[in-house]
């Protein structure tokens, strides 16, 4: 049982406040990903949980015990660093056993536990090597192995995959997800890569400027982003936004004029914000179709076409200088310089007011996604 609970956690460096009172509950065994652009405070927050950064205000509970001012080594956490932070003069075995050695654990016990976690990560043939004789992926595994040996209540990962090449990153991503389903410990994972967040997390925490923007399962964040920032951050390629004029509004619907002068009517929860003149319409690239099946049609000028084989990304301009990305299935016949019609359904549109807050009612989350994305990833 290792819940992690942050209560009004604040970080200040002198007069500069970087984390502005964060409340967060992480349940035992959950895989939580902190995600956000650089400088959003995600690493600082993780380091505060680890005990490497002091918590200026607020409280941190791990396993129902207040550890706000407990030393890092006695919080029952273990961390994987971006740089791996392996001790260069020690062998893999010594690296993995170092924490236990510092805790004055019995030698046989250290050996047993190192062997055990080496087995989990298939590190057995590497145990007598030094870090410099290992590849990037192997070092990463050793760094993870080192945390497993200590059998912590909470695993912390600070952008562990960003030093690896693309192929290895995908492989390690799956390995870490597997590891979580095997060990079932609470894990907190920091990344700036929303794909990593979407594929691994039980729960994603989107941060911006030291504040939590939204907490939820990957599908929840994808379907029902609470604001324009989360909508733009989650999903790849990113969501398209256009500014639209409001022609008229009732309490539950809006009549808008799109940039190309087409008028549309959408359901929207606008009872709280009467008298709007402009709103932002958001539509994901994968919800734009080039086959005219959607209800609303718009004309675009194609700038660049990227063929990825399974999908085609069309970068286009719409009604002047509104940039737009369309994700078409398969190999699209559209070419650069073409003018073509794109269609979409209003049900799949997101609507944000001038403060960036969502104006549409939350969509129901499909049942199977509650099973967690990991199992979809792992098959």
């Amino acid at each position: 049982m290792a819940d992690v609970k942050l209560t009004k956690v604040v970080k200040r460096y002198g007069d500069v406040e970087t984390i502005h009172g964060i409340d967060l509950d992480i349940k035992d065994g959950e895989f939580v990903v902190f995600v956000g652009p650089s400088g959003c405070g995600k690493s600082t927050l993780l380091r505060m949980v680890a005990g490497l950064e002091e918590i200026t205000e607020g409280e941190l509970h791990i396993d129902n015990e207040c550890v706000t001012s407990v030393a890092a080594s006695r919080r029952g956490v273990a961390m994987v660093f971006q740089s791996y932070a392996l001790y260069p003069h020690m062998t893999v075995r010594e690296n993995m056993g170092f924490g236990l050695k510092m805790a004055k654990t019995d030698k046989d016990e250290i050996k047993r536990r190192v062997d055990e976690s080496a087995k989990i990560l298939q590190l057995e043939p590497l145990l007598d090597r030094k870090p410099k004789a290992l590849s990037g992926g192997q070092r990463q595994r050793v760094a993870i192995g080192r945390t497993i040996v200590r059998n912590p209540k909470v695993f912390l990962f600070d952008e562990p995959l960003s030093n690896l090449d693309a192929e290895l990153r995908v492989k390690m991503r799956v390995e870490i997800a597997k590891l979580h389903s095997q060990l079932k410990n609470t894990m907190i994972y920091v990344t700036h890569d929303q794909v990593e967040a979407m594929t691994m997390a039980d729960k994603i925490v989107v941060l911006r400027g030291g504040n939590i923007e939204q907490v939820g399962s990957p599908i929840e964040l994808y379907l029902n982003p609470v604001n324009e920032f989360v909508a733009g951050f989650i999903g790849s390629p990113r969501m398209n936004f256009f500014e639209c004029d409001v022609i008229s509004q009732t309490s539950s619907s809006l009549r808008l004029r799109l940039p190309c002068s087409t008028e549309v009517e959408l359901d929207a929860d606008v009872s709280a914000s009467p008298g709007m003149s402009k709103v932002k319409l958001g539509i994901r690239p994968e919800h734009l179709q080039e086959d005219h099946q959607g209800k609303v049609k718009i004309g675009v000028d194609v700038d660049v076409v990227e063929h990825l084989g399974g999908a085609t990304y069309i970068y286009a301009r719409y009604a002047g200088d509104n940039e737009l990305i369309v994700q078409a299935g398969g190999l699209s016949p559209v070419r650069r310089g073409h003018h073509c019609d794109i269609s979409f359904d209003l049900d799949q549109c997101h609507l944000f007011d001038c403060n960036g807050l969502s104006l549409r009612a939350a969509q129901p989350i499909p049942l199977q996604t509650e099973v967690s994305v990991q199992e979809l990833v792992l098959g």
Partner: protein
Amino acid sequence: MNANTSVNSSDTLTVSSGRPSEPQRPPRKRYVFLMSAPALLGLFMFLVLPFLMALGMSFTDQRLLSPNATEWVGLRNYDRLLNISWLVQEPVSDAAGNLKQTADGELVYPRLRSVLRNDPEYKDFKEYTHWSFDNKRVVLLAKDPSFIQSIINTLLFVILVVPIQCGTALGLALLINQKLRGIFLFRTVFFSPVVTSIVVVSIVWSFLYHKDLGLFNHYLSAMSFGLIGPVDWLGDPDWAMPSIVLMSAWQAAGVQMLIFLAGLQGISGDLYEAAELDGAGPWGKFVNVTLPGLKNTTIFVVISTTIQAFGLFTQVDVMTRGGPQGSTSTVMYHAVTKGFREQDIAYGSAISVIFFLAILAIALLQKRFFDKREDA
């Protein structure tokens, strides 16, 4: 250089600028030679040539000012320098076979000078030291006892100063590696003895060490309520060398401090954080992160400090002139005394050559020692 040539060659391939690509290599070689020529010339003129001259001179009887022509003398200078012998003396006994004793009850031995003079085998030998052993007296002889004394003094200096100086440097580096306000001031202060002339430092410290007026004796006597001291720091054969060691370490540690500081800043902060999470305390982090991270720096610092320490001269020349009783004479001091003050430049050259070979050997040994530890 490499980047340049590759860019140029791709230019000629793709753009066909008409520039001939053939004569790329010869000018480069010529430039390499041309550019390094001043340094090579300096190295040759002030290092290689003097050494070769010293080597040549060490086989002659050249003197600085002498009416006599220089002659080859073979290995005579080296013989004088390195020849060591010993003799064992029986105590003198009277006609009845009883051992003669002095009024203090000490045994009497034959007069050493007459023994050495009468035996051609011991020609030119002088006593270096002696000790008694089972009623017999063992006398260690050398042709130049003060050279032997100088070697021992120099070794003593090195053995004392290297750990003290390197330890001080590491300690200071750890202190000034902290992120504190005004740390730059401390760095400057700790480094300032290095940029002060060693002659000035030696003179100032001579005052500090003064038996009656010196600050050290005042502090010692004040702190011990008059129980300790006054110590004649530079006048007592037992204290003179340690005093010079202390001063030298203080003066020179700033350089090693900067090198250690650079080494410390090269250690990744993540390692300290990982060690912190692993439960290592300050000592644990020092032993398991700092020291291993400073290994190469330490090798360099120890070897360079050792070599520097072997060259001890100025402090001795200014503070003690080799005394008292030869207790601070060093190899370098001896070489300068013999070669210039006594004008026996050939003998001074021989000392320099031996000194060079000794330092070379020690540096190589140290390197091998550290290399072996790396493999282990």
